[in-house]
């Protein structure tokens, strides 16, 4: 196997796993709560600025994780309370409300940090010799962390008590409440978990991309594509969607070029919306 082919294969794996993690936050909020969170990308952006703030102060990169947890968690708490709670079960209204929120977050970031690009120093520079090829070490770590996060979430959602309660709430909120599940609190917790996951995704990609107020736009569209293709309400759906969208994009970009990669993604998303709007793993 030629080394270039192998690197492209790792690129595909990298593309799929990181995309899956970047979608998780939206999968939780849109997939479980039915809230069309257009501001998903802005929570990713906030996470990325957390990484920048920590490293710019000369602190270790990993401190960005608790910082993003706190910042995105608090943001999620406030947003859920003020904006989302009155709008549950009104998907279109949540779309408009979170669109406004995305503008507000973007402009706030612009007001605080300015429009200029920020760069976050790679916490792990250089490449590792791996299966006979050199691959950037930080990206390899990201692949591993992404797989761990996905696996943990898969297990937790399927087997924990809270996971079961959430599934009950998603299945039938009224019935769940009648069973003594505090649905409001559970929904709030689920929303906050979604914003935190988005923020942590932002921390992860921050050392690889330009950090700037508009960066969220890069993530939100692709995240919705993944959910359209994969279907809502399950970790498997996220994986399938990320595999289809991220995989196709990476493979076609490697074989032809980025324009065709993006083109394929758009075509696949449209075909799914048209022919199979509930996705591969539809949640009923």
């Amino acid at each position, binding site marked *: 196997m030629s080394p*270039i082919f192998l*690197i*492209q294969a790792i*690129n595909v794996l*990298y*593309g799929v796993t990181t995309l899956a993690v970047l979608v998780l936050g939206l999968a939780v909020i849109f997939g479980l709560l039915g809230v069309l969170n257009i501001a998903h990308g802005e929570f990713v952006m906030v996470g990325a600025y957390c990484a920048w703030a920590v490293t710019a102060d000369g602190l270790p990169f990993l401190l960005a994780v608790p910082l993003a947890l706190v910042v995105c968690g608090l943001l999620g708490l406030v947003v859920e309370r003020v904006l989302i709670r009155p709008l549950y079960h009104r998907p279109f209204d949540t779309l408009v409300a979170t669109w406004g929120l995305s503008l507000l977050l973007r402009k706030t970031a612009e007001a605080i940090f*300015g*429009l*200029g*690009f*920020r*760069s976050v*120093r*790679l916490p792990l*520079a*250089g*490449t590792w010799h791996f299966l006979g090829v*050199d*691959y*950037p070490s*930080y*990206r390899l770590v990201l692949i591993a962390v992404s797989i761990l996060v996905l696996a943990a979430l898969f297990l937790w959602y399927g087997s924990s008590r809270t996971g079961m309660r959430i599934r009950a709430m998603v299945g039938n909120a009224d019935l769940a409440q009648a069973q003594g599940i505090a649905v409001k609190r559970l929904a709030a917790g689920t929303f906050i978990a979604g914003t935190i996951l988005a923020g942590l995704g932002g921390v992860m990609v921050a050392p*690889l*991309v*330009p*950090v*700037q107020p*508009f*960066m969220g*736009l*890069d*993530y939100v*569209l*692709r995240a919705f594509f993944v959910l359209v293709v994969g279907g809502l309400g399950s970790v498997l759906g996220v994986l399938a969607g990320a595999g289809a969208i991220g995989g196709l*994009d*990476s493979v076609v*970009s*490697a074989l032809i*070029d*980025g*324009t065709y*990669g*993006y*083109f394929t993604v758009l075509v696949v998303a449209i075909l799914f919306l048209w022919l199979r709007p509930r996705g591969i793993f539809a949640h009923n």
Partner: protein
Amino acid sequence: MTEGKLAITRRTLLGTAMGGAALSLAPGLIGRAAAAAGEFKIGLFIPLSGPASLFGPTGRACATLAADEANKKGGILGRQIKLFIADAGGPPADTAKSAVRLMLQDGIDLAIGSHDSATMEALVSTFKGKIPYVYTPVYQGGECDFNVYCLGETPAQQVEPSVTWLARNKHAKTFYLIGDDYVSPRKTNEAAKKYIAAVGGKVVGEEYVPFGAPNKFEQSVTRIKGVNPDVVLITLVGADNVNFNRTFAGFGLDKSIARLSMLLEENTLKGIGAESSNNLYSCMAYFAAIDNPANNAFKAAYTAMFGANAPQLGTIGVDSYAGVNFAKALVEKAHGTNARKCMAASEGVRFEAAAGPVTMHGRQVDKNMYLANCNGGQFNIVATFKNMKSGTTCKV
């Protein structure tokens, strides 16, 4: 036909706007008319919204500085310069609307623009040569419309000398071209292929990524690793430029392959960061780091006026300084803003850009170009190319 319809609409609009303006201004008309004769009104089109608005504050500050300096010396033909700033960061059609308003309502005498080339085309067809239009930023060359004057760097000035320098000093023979998929990168690469062939080099790959899409560059960088060229010529802009260069260095290719980026200024380099900018080159007419008497004086005046926290200086932004100075030189040489006279006067007109005086020929500007390597995230100037020709000659 469409053209005719458009013209009628615009005339109708003109009538309505003038009527409205006359009515609403009637009480203060006399005072206003007197003031209007005294001021030289310049429309300044810079991005104030959207991602490019990063450059807006620098452009505004530099134009203000130039206008202030000119006004202290009597303005333009004895008239004080007044700047009318309009947003050019939105869709070109919106900018064109602002241009119509500035022409009809405010009666600007001349327009200066620092924005993308799509907006430039919209403004050219809005002004239709009625007022001099000075297009200041780096661009792909070849713009020759009536009463339009281009000050920015062209491929002939950026690519030719730097490719030649890399061939001579770094023994570069093979080149890989990567850019965003729109007019400017494709035109630049078209020109670049000629210059590469001229030094006996070879293009070993060429690819474009969709402009404005959320691009990733792992695949492109791996492809480049497979081809292993001596130089990658980059015509990606903004976030794509940052993203590509960070990925490129992340894969460790910066050690063996040189990169030459066509739109790399101070803000973009900040995004790329020190660790990803080794063996990366940029060729521009202006860097804040240029150490010559003209630039040092310019920077001192800039800091004196706007303080230590003034917007970052870079080639996009300081072009507005040259724009105002050019406007003064041109209009004074032509004794007014008559289009024919301005066109004729533009030939050989000399004016101050931030890094020193430059001369216009064929409505483009010959200028000194600076090649910088970006080691450590700083522009270190390694070569100066004196008095480079623009490669475009327009009728005057």
